[in-house]
């Protein structure tokens, strides 16, 4: 005997998704200043030193900023997405399992996980929107910068944020809370240094082994994708290859992340 009347229809699934999203936005909004500091301080310092000070001192060429900006944006975007998903997950699955009240919602678990990823994407976008104008202010005019392909910029940004939100899902569920600090120094730091954030991928021709080894680093595709759409006249990977890679990375991290979430959520 199934009481069909109480099974939520599609409309109320949408409503429940909105409620889950509202909760996370409500909580995140209170922490917005901390969020912006956490995710943008490091890229902004980089811009000050490498984009403004070093060129003036004559240690790097004046146009280094053009190579740097897309990479800095990539780092800010990618890691705000990762952190926005991974860090709350630690509390969600922590000692008292606060996520339990959402796991009891009458929706398939995929919906709860998708919502988490969407929140990560939104926060990545906010970080990017914050960094870009500030960077432009600090560095002054960047000759090669073009935002005429706004649609493509948005598409690359969304794909990049998706790739790193799903990575956050995997990290937040697969890594124990005690090791979350270690995660940032062991995984995140190398990812940034070998992520082609501060130099274009083609320039790695000086070290062929490293050039091909870094291809396993998801950040490479975010940085190169940003170059392709923001500074299209400078060397960058083909945009189509970048997009394909970002889609593949998102699919992989989603599969692994969802499996890991399920393992944590249901015993």
């Amino acid at each position, binding site marked *: *005997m*199934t*009481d069909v009347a*109480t*099974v*939520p229809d599609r409309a*109320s699934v949408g*409503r*429940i998704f909105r*409620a*889950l999203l*509202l*909760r996370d936005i*409500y*909580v995140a909004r209170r922490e917005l200043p901390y969020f912006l500091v956490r995710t943008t301080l490091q890229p902004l310092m980089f811009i000050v030193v490498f984009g403004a000070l070093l060129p003036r001192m004559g240690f790097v060429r004046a146009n280094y900023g053009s190579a740097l900006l897309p990479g800095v944006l990539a780092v800010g975007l990618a890691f705000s997405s990762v952190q926005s998903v991974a860090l709350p997950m630690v*509390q969600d699955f922590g000692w*008292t*399992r*606060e996520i*339990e*009240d*959402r*796991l*009891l*919602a*009458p*929706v*398939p678990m995929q919906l709860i996980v998708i919502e988490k990823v969407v929140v990560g994407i939104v926060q990545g976008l906010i970080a990017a929107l914050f960094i870009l104008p500030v960077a432009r202010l600090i560095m002054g005019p960047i000759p090669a910068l073009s935002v005429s392909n706004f649609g493509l910029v948005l598409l690359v940004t969304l794909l990049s944020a998706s790739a790193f939100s799903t990575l956050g899902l995997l990290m937040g569920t697969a890594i124990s809370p005690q090791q979350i600090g270690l995660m940032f120094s062991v995984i995140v730091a190398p990812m940034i240094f070998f992520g082609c954030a501060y130099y274009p991928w083609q320039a790695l021709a000086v070290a062929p082994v490293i050039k091909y080894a870094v291809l396993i680093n998801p950040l490479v595709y975010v940085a190169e994708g940003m170059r392709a759409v923001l500074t299209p006249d400078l060397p960058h990977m083909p945009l189509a290859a970048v997009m394909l890679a970002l889609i593949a990375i998102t699919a992989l991290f989603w599969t692994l992340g969802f499996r890991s979430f399920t393992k944590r959520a*249901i*015993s």
Partner: protein
Amino acid sequence: MALQGLDLEVNEGEFFGLLGPNGAGKTTCIGIMTTRVRATSGTAIVAGADVRTEDVAVRQRIGVVPQRPNPDRSLNVRENLVFHAAYFGIPRETASARAVELLEQLGIGDRGESKVDQLSGGQQQRLMIARALIHEPRILFLDEPTVGLDPQARHALWDILRDQHSRGRTIVMTTHYMEEADRLCERVAIVDHGRLLTLGTTAALKAEAPGGTLVELTLDGAAAAVAEAVRSAPGVLRAEAAGNVLRVFSERGGEVIEPLLRAAQTHGRAVQNIHLSPPSLETLFISLTGRKLD
């Protein structure tokens, strides 16, 4: 904890208790029924829906009070309720009104704007009950809801549960407190090691207890020989040994104590302690498992 052949049926509107010691499989059982633990085999139907294939429908119809309060600490008390209702598709205005009403009913009406961490253990447990009720579930599941509460908070919680039951709510509760099961539940299933030991109304179960009073003598050595000796003594229904403890069920209650003391003496044992328990779920449990509940 593995469950083995635990077959149960709970009627609509019933107050049902799962009674057993810690580690008996009660929490696993609740976890399976609330779709939070996946059963490797067997079936469970909750409010007409299969927990394995219709988990969404099951969650729609149940409210769950966990063993350890797990509120959303990023939200205050009222927000916990309003957001939880929203996860069930209930509009904000309806949820807000209901939250006020429930908090009032549960005696924490003045704590709506408090942070969750400012609540006492008992108040947090009430918040959990309010959360479980905000979407008007057909069945309320509670997992050891009174563990860690002081006696006053426990009695207050009992009143709340009786009230919910009198409103026609089906309640399934686990507990390892005999008294709790006895006072609240209409029917009780006694479980241990994942198996159902017995099932019935509290009155029927008490009648099932091996008649009479349980007399327990703690000796200064193994009680086996003494148990053997007193088994056929007048008034003794049953006698067994558990290490140094001699357990005798007797129709005559205290009258058997003297012969028991003599028998112990004859076997060179000194009696260190004597304990008498009238027939109860407790004595039934001991007779079924040979050990105490907690």
